């Protein structure tokens, strides 16, 4: 669908005339280096997919009830995943993970992108503190914040998108909302946890212009998976699982897992999706 170019060729495009003093975009996010985080980051997609497969029959039997019942579990899993494996907003990947590697902290580019309301100094103090409890609480806050934003903002947004793509508006409202909630938890929790409400990042998110990393890859995978999940719905196979929104959710879950794993491979990591062929864009700008 779209070509992918290496980051080096893209970073040049920030330079020209317009957009004065645009902040450099935050680099791709790494999974925390601790062994537990690394290991769990591979286990987590598998666990999600496994649970999904395990509950699939119940989902087909009564989608609304099952989706509703699964929601807290999914939320818990996602929150524990982001807390365990990802650096919270305002920190950098190295500092939040292992307190020992303090000296590397200075290197990353953007210490200027904390969570808006948060006090970076305060949190930084805590994260570098010795107490693991303090560290835990420092992560709990952004985790719950991301959970709240996900359910309040991302869910309605995704629900609207589902309807725009053709989901029924007059019926199946519970299915649509629940499907959106699941998709939001899959895609947005990580993004909000890692990036907060950093404007420059979200501008890149809306433009699908983030460099590929595990968080962004899984979010993108969720969306693409849901898109492809719509394909089997019209087929006349008369299978109960063809009912809305089962295939879409299945696609989203698979897309999440595939996206989060594939995006970490060196082939894709750090690259950006490119829309237009480079030369054509600049060539014929309006002359008047």
């Amino acid at each position, binding site marked *: *669908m*779209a*070509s992918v170019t290496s980051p080096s060729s893209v970073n040049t495009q920030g330079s*020209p005339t*317009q*957009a004065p003093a645009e902040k450099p975009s935050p680099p791709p996010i790494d999974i925390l280096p601790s062994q537990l985080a690394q290991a769990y980051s591979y286990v987590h997609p598998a666990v999600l997919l496994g649970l999904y497969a395990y509950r699939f029959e119940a989902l087909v039997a009564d989608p609304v009830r099952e989706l509703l019942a699964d929601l807290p579990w999914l939320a818990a899993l996602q929150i524990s995943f982001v807390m365990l494996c990802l650096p919270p907003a305002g920190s950098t990947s190295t500092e939040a993970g292992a307190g020992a590697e303090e000296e590397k902290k200075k290197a990353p580019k953007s210490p200027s992108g904390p969570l808006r309301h948060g006090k970076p100094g305060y949190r930084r103090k805590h994260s570098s503190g010795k107490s693991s409890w303090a560290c835990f609480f420092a992560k709990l806050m952004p985790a719950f914040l991301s959970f709240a934003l996900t359910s309040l903002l991302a869910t309605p947004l995704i629900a609207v*998108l589902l*309807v*725009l*793509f*053709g989901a029924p508006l007059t019926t199946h409202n519970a299915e649509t909302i629940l499907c959106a909630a699941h998709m939001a938890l899959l895609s947005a929790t990580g993004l909000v946890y890692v990036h907060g409400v950093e404007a420059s990042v979200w*501008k890149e998110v*809306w*433009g*699908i*212009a983030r460099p590929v990393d595990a968080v962004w890859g899984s979010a993108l995978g969720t969306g693409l998976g849901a*898109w492809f999940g*719509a394909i089997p719905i*019209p*087929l*006349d196979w008369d299978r109960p699982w063809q009912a809305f929104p089962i295939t879409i959710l299945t696609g989203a879950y698979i897309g999440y897992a595939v996206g989060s794993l594939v995006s970490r491979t060196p082939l894709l990591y750090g690259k950006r*999706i*490119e*829309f*237009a*062929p480079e030369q*054509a*864009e600049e*060539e*014929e*700008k*309006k*002359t*008047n």
Partner: protein
Amino acid sequence: MVLKAPTGSAGTSGPKNPLTATAKEKEIALQEAKSQQLEQEFKTKHLGILGVLLWVLLLHVAGIYFFTKGFLLTRMVLENKSSCDILPFDDVSGKAVSSSTGGKKGCWHDKTFDKAVVIIIDALRYDFTVPFASMDQDEAAHLFHDNIPVLYETAVNNPSNAFLLPFIADPPTTTLQRLKGLTTGTLPTFIDAGSNFAGTAIDEDNLVAQLHSAGKTLVQLGDDTWQSLFPGYFDANLTHPYDSFNVWDLHTVDNGVNEHLFPLLQPENKGKWDVIFGHYLGVDHAGHRYGPNHVAMAAKLQEMDRVIRKIIASLDDDTLLVVMGDHGMDTKGDHGGESDDEVQAALWMYSKRGVFGRTSKDTLLPPKHARERFVPQIDLVPTLSLLLGMPIPFNNLGSPIEEAFAGSSGNDWSNLLAVNRLSAAQIKRYQHAYATARGAGDDEESFALWTAAEEEWKSASKGFTSKSTTVRSSYQLYRKYQRHTLEICRGLWARFDVPSMIAGVALLFFGISLLVLYARGMKIDRTELTPSLLSFVGAGTGLGAVAGVVLVLFGFTDMATIDASALLAAFGSMAGGLFALVKKPENLTLPIPNGMWGCLAFFFTVSQSLGYASNSYTIWEDEILLFFLTTFGVCAGISSMRQKSTTDRVLGVYHSILFVILGRVASFSRLCREEQMPFCRSTYYASSTSSISAPWQLAIPFLVALILPGVVRSFYAGSKSYEGAATLWIGFAFRLGLLITSLFWMLEGADDGEWLPLRKETLKSVRVFLAQLVLALAFGAGTGAYLYSKPCISISVNKPTEDPNAPPAPVILGQQQQPRTTVTILGFGNVYGTRFFFLVVNFALAVILMQKPMGQGAIALLICQILSLLEILDTNALTLTNSPIGPVVLGLLGSFYFFKTGHQAVLSSIQWETAFIPMSTIKYPWSPLLVILNTFGAQILAAIAVPLTVLWKRPLQTHDRVSQSSSTKVANPASRLLSDVVQAASTHMLYLATINLATTMWAGHLRRHLMLYRIFSPRFMMGAVVLGVVDVVLMLFAVAGVRWSTLSVGEIFGW
């Protein structure tokens, strides 16, 4: 956009440099000559690209022709006629049997009746005639139930006087095809389906011809289709045909039939006629106009009930009365396809002499549902022939109806055997003749059946002891033989001419390959190519045509001369075109999609094409198109977010969101096809069993009139182009036209609901006048305005001294000028686009008039979506880069709104009645054109808008600007514009041609598929017609229209 340009630079006024007079004049003359030359060049090149488009159109037509020729079923028409003297069997004993029992005369069999009154109630569905029996519990009786009880009552109360049976039509369920089946007894072939508008005489043996040659006096009353099928067969004095296509008129035909029928039934007139064919159209028209579930339908059926009772009252003993429907109607009252509701008609026979019987107690009552104990419609032919003592027509495949020959006690097995042996023998004779003519042998199984039946018959005729059982089994075997043959013929006549189909597909395929090369694989100005392209194409065509003729003359092929030369000419022209295109390889680029947009356009086209292989994706095409359009809108939003300029970003995101929402809103207008049930709810009409608009829907036209011109205006105002002719044309004329349209539909609603105490005729003539006014405004005044109006700009001249606050004049051309008189040109930024958009407005007005109220809302949304799309293209810099996405999304929009204007890819969704919006009678060629404008209105509008994908907000480029700014080779900028336009047009064609090729190939590949006639074949026909219509529209209107818009811009700004 405001442009403050120093004088002179825009080329409007003469230079003020202190030159000597002669030099100045010389320069002016030189400039004028130059600009005239450029204008001339533009006109020539413009004609050239129209020629190229014509060539593409002809290629498409040729491809579709060759495929269609092989694909649409054909059946050989045998000239043989049955005659009274020659019995269908060769043996003498058969003759002995038939003549021995004589007493009353008859040709092959003793006649039961002397005279017959055959009443056809068009579209009399079986469930209209039987008491309502709900299939599931919560189904309540509809308005069309239980209104014509006479048929059922008589059949139940006096079984020996009457019987009522479901009467299943062979699709296509159009009246002309049905009349053919009902008189010849053969199966229809698809090739005839299209001739419903102008019927042609039947030259096969048929019942009417048999009656006529036996010297009977035949009378025909009602539907005039009979006249075109059987010219000269009916008694000229007594026959009264009526125009059959005015479906708005429920009563004229029926009243006419009544007026002439009842006098003939009076005893004093009985000697004047032998058989009367009366054809009532009221029920059919009520269905077309209102749908079955309407009080008008109930009233009509009750009227028919009274008519039949009246006929019964004046019937004598020797006259047979037949009442039947020629087909049913679907839930909206339309027909033509092969859904259950469309094929299930009713047959009722009545005689005052009790001659009918039932062979079993189970069959005493008429079946509750049409699926039980039905008879095929062709069974009427042998039944009626033998009852009236006529020979069975030669081509007949039907069998005698049991009830008519079983005798009043239901056990006249010898009679049943006799009639079935006759019809079976005639079928065998026909099969033999057909097999000989085609050069093929008889079918083995049917031969075995026939032999067995003959054996049984022989033993039955020898030994009289075990008569009833052997006679019965012999009868059953003959019956089986007939039904078996019928099945064989059904399969046989689905015989496809595969080589011709392959030729058609090959033509379409190579046509697409060339179009890919031309539209996407050329680096240079396409207008430069035109001369060599056209001359090579011409040469190829000529050579091919000659080669075809030569091949036929020397007997290398058994194709018709014209076909052979057309085929070779098409291939020759493609070879020539290919050579002209690839002659200079340096002009070519690889035509692979590049960038996200190219890939997306490619993906949409290809995935949609693949989808047509599946019946599900064909059925749900409307939803899939919405999915694609939303995908495009989301991608557009994403892409807009990446734009660097804030204006582009904000505008782009805004229009992307608008685009997606408008599409979703439009998707609420739906007309479900049968296969979408029960997952779909129709909203296009008042209810799913109606074809009129709900009263609230009548508000839609007014809303459109109120809002749409304002929306268009806002898009003009965005570039300060709401100037000049735009104010008059969009603000006044367009709005006026839309208002008249809404008045028209208000009156239409008033007529349907009988709200006004006015005569129907008055209302009708007022409506016709209003509609013609709108069309005159759109096409008469609109075309005039389009040809002669100035661009949408306003020019004002300012003296700098009077306007000291004016910002420093931006320098367009980099040359510093003294502050002198400045010319302010408003609307400069979108001068090509706004001028061309008038054409869209004109067509939009006409298309909106031709839609039902719900469709008008949809078309208005289409206009808004097109405008949003154009803004998206502009803000994402896709206008000047010749991205394929614009034309392809327009293609998607056209297809999407086809479904949103109450259509589906099935024949029965054609809204024939819209031909009567601006006319009260059928007039050629206008009526078919109006139906096309209704059916393909969305695609037509999308095609008209195609040039806008490169014209919208296209910066003004004139010769002197370009030559001054870029020192490179000076080409005519207008030809660059033309090249872009033709590229966009051919990309649009490419999309539709790919869809057409896909539907064609799948229909050909799946030609034995169960769903061929329900799904694949209609979709193929739709794809082919859309391609043809859009090719013509692109050539004749869209691309041709660029001439005048560009000329008018050139007139102001120079060349």
